[in-house]
């Protein structure tokens, strides 16, 4: 493998890994804020216990998201320095603004929330988790605005004197239609993840509490786990609907802005009018001639592309390759067809699992029912990983589908703003990048095991006894020493 391949593997591994934890952070922070708000408004200690329970799980997860996020901020310079030179004037701004306007808030106020349970007045303490919830979502916006500029560069022009892309309008960048669609899609994905997490964990506990296994928790099933399961399920259903709508918008934008990506996602080799949507194909997907579509559904693809059922002409990979070559010179402009095709289908298919679970769980808990069926408990556990995998599949699809571009040319923008991935990589020796890739992979693997073990340990323990009653706020000046809550 050469430096380019190793660097791409490193970026892929560290980024996909980072985005395992981040969606849970983005979605769970607002849900915890809602739980704490319900406790604040009703005084019902059940919601206090849920806040503490999911608060601890949130923090275990938050740590790994933050730790792996530093790598992201450094990696453009470390391994993609030529990319950084080309885009820095444009791409750096949202990253810096993310730090100033979002990450500062979230990191400072999470500390206040963790340690401030008894130190801060209750309303101020509640405000802290809301600041965190809003800031993590603002973070997502700035990062996705930066990423969307790589998919669809707007608000910039190429300066032939400096040889780089230069920002002409920050507003154009922040109102990029690709950014708005991708941001809302990613946030719905995050809410799907967190909703599934809350619903899955609480459904599992609801069944466990009601069984012979844990008779001491029996009393919690109805007042605590059932409403929390329902809350999670409603979030799942709402975000599933949001994902379909925003995904549809994104798809239509992609057909117009990055036709090669969508043609690859469909294994559409030749330009055709009203092609069918294939569910199953076989063949060595990087060779167009060998692909055979086995199961196909008519009308779907024209609708995905333009919102019409017939009369839509879609460009195939081969014709796009020829037109790119005549525009940008000889080179292979095809992404990895196998990965884009299957990642796209995995993303959609995996969404069905939490949605189905939510419908089933809502039906079984209707009218105050507490389900007893053991299979629901297994279904809940099986559902838990699916939104995480769907998020990863979606990002793998959209990022691998952009290849070989690292900045894809905008068909209606400045044609000089484009960068091939091979021109963006740092001039390191392959051996050095192999060493860093091996280091990251090993450390990340160990941390993932610990993360999973900790999450599992805290889920299985359930809400803890000493969290059942909120501690009274300390009167000011009562004690010269600070009482610690939630201490390390």
């Amino acid at each position: 493998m050469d430096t380019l391949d190793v660097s791409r593997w490193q970026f892929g591994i560290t980024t996909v890994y980072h985005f395992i934890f981040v969606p849970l952070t983005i979605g769970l922070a607002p849900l915890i804020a809602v739980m704490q708000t319900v406790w604040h408004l009703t005084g019902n200690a059940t919601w206090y216990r849920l806040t503490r329970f999911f608060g601890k799980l949130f923090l275990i997860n938050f740590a790994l998201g933050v730790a792996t996020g530093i790598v992201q901020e450094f990696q453009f310079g470390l391994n993609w320095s030529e990319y950084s030179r080309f885009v820095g004037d444009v791409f750096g701004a949202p990253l810096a603004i993310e730090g100033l306007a979002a990450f500062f808030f979230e990191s400072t106020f999470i500390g206040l929330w963790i340690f401030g349970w008894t130190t801060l007045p209750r309303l101020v303490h509640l405000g802290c988790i809301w600041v965190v919830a809003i800031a993590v979502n603002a973070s997502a916006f700035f990062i996705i605005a930066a990423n969307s500029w790589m998919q669809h560069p707007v608000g910039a022009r190429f300066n032939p004197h400096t040889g780089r892309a230069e920002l002409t309008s920050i507003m154009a960048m922040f109102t990029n239609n690709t950014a708005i669609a991708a941001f809302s899609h990613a946030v719905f994905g995050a809410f799907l993840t967190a909703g599934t997490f809350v619903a899955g964990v609480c459904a599992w506990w609801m069944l466990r509490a009601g069984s012979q296994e844990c008779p001491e928790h029996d009393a919690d099933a109805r007042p605590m786990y059932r409403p929390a399961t329902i809350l999670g399920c409603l979030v799942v259903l709402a975000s599933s609907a949001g994902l379909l709508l925003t995904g549809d918008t994104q798809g239509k934008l992609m057909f117009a802005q990055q036709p090669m990506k969508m043609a690859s996602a469909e294994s559409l080799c030749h330009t055709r009018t009203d092609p069918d949507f294939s569910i199953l194909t076989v063949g060595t997907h990087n060779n167009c001639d060998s692909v055979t579509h086995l199961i196909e559904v008519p009308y779907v693809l024209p609708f995905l592309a333009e919102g019409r059922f017939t009369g839509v002409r879609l460009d195939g990979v081969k014709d796009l390759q020829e037109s790119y070559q005549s525009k940008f010179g000889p080179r292979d402009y095809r992404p990895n067809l196998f990965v884009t095709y299957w990642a796209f289908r995995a993303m959609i298919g995996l969404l069905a699992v939490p949605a189905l679970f939510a419908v089933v769980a809502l039906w079984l808990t209707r009218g105050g029912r507490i389900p007893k069926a053991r299979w629901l408990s297994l279904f809940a556990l099986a559902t838990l990983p699916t939104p995480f995998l769907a998020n990863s599949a979606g990002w793998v699809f959209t990022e691998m589908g952009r290849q070989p571009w690292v900045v894809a040319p905008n068909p209606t923008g400045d044609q000089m703003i484009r960068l091939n991935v091979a021109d963006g990589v740092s001039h390191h020796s392959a051996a050095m990048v192999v060493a860093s890739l091996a280091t990251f992979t090993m450390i990340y693997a160990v941390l993932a095991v610990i993360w999973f073990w900790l999450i599992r340990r805290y889920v299985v323990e359930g809400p803890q006894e000493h969290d059942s009653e909120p501690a009274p706020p300390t009167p000011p000046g009562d004690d010269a020493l600070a009482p610690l809550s939630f201490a390390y």
Partner: protein
Amino acid sequence: MGLPEIWFVIMAMLFLGFFVLEGFDFGVGMLMPFFGRLAKGDPGQHRRAALNTIGPVWDGNEVWLITAAGAMFAAFPDWYATLFSGLYLPLLVILVSMILRVVAIEWRGKIDDPKWRSLADVGIAAGSWLPAILWGMVFAMLVRGLPVDADKQVQLSLPDVFSAYPVLGGLTTVALFLFHGAVFVALKTEGAVRDDAFRFARWLSLPVTALIAAFGLWTHLFGDKSWTLVVVGFAVVAQLTAVVLVWRRTGEGWAFACTASVVAVLVILLFGSLYPDLVPSTLNPRWSLTIYNASSTPYTLKIMTWAALIFAPLAMVYQGWTYWVFRKRISAEKIPAPAGLSRRLS
């Protein structure tokens, strides 16, 4: 003052915030294993007390670095690209160690088990010692210059890293952060932990002062500016004041203000010596990256200036408020029992 100059000052301020705030976080992390070794009592409780002095604030402090890196990318893309790719291995070690520090601090109290805690303590120690040394080395290498070629590329060799000046820089930051951290613990605790913190600070006081004076003078000699000598003088005076206060075991607040000033003027000294270069080239001065040839367009710098003017003072206000909220001292004697779970479900 034009936009590139303003952004050079903002970059200096972001790194100043990072070194002043994370400086004591690193110091506390480095000293943590030594608490409870001398004083009577349960060493585990002493370590927890020391760690909890930075508990509510360390995460927010780290954002100064994240923002500095992002701002460097936005304001001086070539600086960011050359520095980060040129110093690949040192920055990689910093990254890995900071990953370990974050998860070790956050996860340490989650499981109530001595083996688990000592594993986390290894992560905290590695994640504090390595960045404390390496950041000093990185900035010393930057001030001395790197072999930047005509294409803005750097091929780093071992003698670039392990020569006397960068090593002295690394020793200086590590010693200064140890001292800064010890004074911070003295300021934030009572009882045996505070006694230990004073003890550590006293032991460190002479070597730290010598290192600051030596590194400061050498840095002054690298530059061509006479005013940097005044900065070095100020650092030494502030450092000596802190030393006197530490030996008299009074006025931790003032001592902390002094050590914070020492860190701050050290950053001013480094950036002042660098100006107007960003990465001086040791091969050919014409290949140096400067604030003029490595900066972004005036439009981008203007946008970024507005963002910095609005959000950076705001961040200082709410971070300052955090320090006020958690202003009370803590002690190993009055710390609640660990709230972590056992390793296995009982």
